[in-house]
């Protein structure tokens, strides 16, 4: 999806550089020196680090306190290619996602991709702090498999220590019922009933009285028959509109939420004011992007509008010419030789 490009490249400058070419490697070293680069990151396969002249030792020789981050699928000793779904499959996320008894499913978001970045971000912050305290740089090798499996907090311990293998269970909860997604006449709601008092409140709502059976009075009884129970609840919820059911359940203090579509999410009052945007100065094309996880003062000051993502090599002249001082003829020669 194009959203990948927008969200991850806003605010950047982009140059092209052929690092298989010795002249390209030389330019990279100059860039690191002239820009006084603090952090270098790459997602090249580890086998290419030295070949391209981007390994930690090579860059540390240029800038001794550089913070070097290499993101790979399975660590610096593996050159296995990794895409997000590969990690979802091998890392157990697909095993945990989907209907009970159904096929494993890919998550709706690329968690291994984005989670690895978040984990790398934390490590970069630690490296910056270390550098501030010691003036030393760092090498960080971040493996997507490590990041991915680290989310399996409960399943790993249950399987290895308590010999209880968890797997996908659809929308239901392991310990409480009824907890699931239920249909309405115009959408879906998620209901989470965490105790027997809430169950009694449900039975008091017109349209749900028929569920009043002794075997359902306690959570244990409801959990034991959760599939049939959920079907019976669904029969009742289908007769309500989403808004009506939410209002009714909220009055009864039963936890409920509309399962929102993405357009609904974007219009949600808790979300809409925080969306980011970016405008292409060349065409006026405006892109709306997901909100940041935390609204910083800086984002408020720039009206939540980030610089538009660069075209490939858009800043070649500004960076190579402006920062490295290359002349027009030199740039033309580098272009002609395929170095930039």
């Amino acid at each position, binding site marked *: *999806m*194009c959203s*990948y*490009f*927008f*969200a*991850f*490249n806003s*605010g*950047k*400058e*982009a140059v*092209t*550089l*052929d*690092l*298989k*070419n010795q002249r390209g490697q030389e330019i990279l070293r100059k*860039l*690191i020196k002239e*820009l*006084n*680069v*603090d*952090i*270098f*990151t*790459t*997602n*090249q*396969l580890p086998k290419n680090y030295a070949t*391209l002249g*981007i390994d930690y030792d090579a860059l540390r020789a240029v800038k001794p306190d550089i913070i070097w981050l290499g*993101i790979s699928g399975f660590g610096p000793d593996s050159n296995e290619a990794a895409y997000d779904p590969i990690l979802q499959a091998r890392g157990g996320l697909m095993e945990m996602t989907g209907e009970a008894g159904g096929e494993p499913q890919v998550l709706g978001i690329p968690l291994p*991709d*984005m989670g690895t*970045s*978040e984990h*790398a*971000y934390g490590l*970069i*912050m630690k490296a*910056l*702090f270390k550098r*501030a*305290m010691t*003036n030393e740089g760092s090498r960080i090798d971040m493996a997507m498999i490590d990041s991915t499996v680290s989310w399996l907090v409960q399943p790993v311990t249950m399987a290895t220590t308590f010999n209880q293998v968890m797997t996908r269970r659809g929308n239901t909860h392991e310990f409480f019922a009824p907890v699931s997604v239920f249909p309405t006449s115009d959408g879906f709601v998620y209901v989470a009933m965490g105790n027997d008092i809430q169950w009694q409140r449900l039975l008091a709502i017109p349209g749900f009285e028929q569920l009043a059976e002794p075997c359902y009075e306690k959570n244990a009884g409801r959990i034991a028959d959760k599939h049939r129970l959920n079907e019976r609840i669904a029969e009742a919820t289908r007769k309500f509109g989403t808004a009506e059911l939410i209002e009714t359940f909220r009055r009864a203090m039963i936890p409920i939420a509309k399962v929102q579509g993405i357009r609904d999410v974007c219009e949600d009052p808790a979300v809409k004011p925080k969306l980011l945007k970016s405008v292409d100065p060349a*065409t006026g*094309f405006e892109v709306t992007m997901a909100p*940041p996880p935390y609204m*910083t003062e*800086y*984002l408020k000051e*720039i009206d939540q509008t980030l*610089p538009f993502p*660069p*075209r*490939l090599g858009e800043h070649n002249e500004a960076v190579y010419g402006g920062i490295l001082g290359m002349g027009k003829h030199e740039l033309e020669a580098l272009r002609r030789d*395929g170095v*930039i």
Partner: protein
Amino acid sequence: MKRNSNIFRNLTVLSLEQATVLPYLTWLIAWRRMVFGSFGWSTLSNAIPTAGSATRSSQVKKRCVRTSLHSIQVKRQ
């Protein structure tokens, strides 16, 4: 210790992104379809880089940290 009050200031991040090409092309295709209703193959050939590509953070005034799929940029304070 002398730099510990300055950890997040004036940071420059250089990221080498092997995967830039693919997202760029998907964006290009989507954008051209949206604006022109078609996608020109001449644009595709122009977009393919010689080898790798690199991005660096823009200069901005305030501290702001943002993470991304294959790179991390720390904008300048």
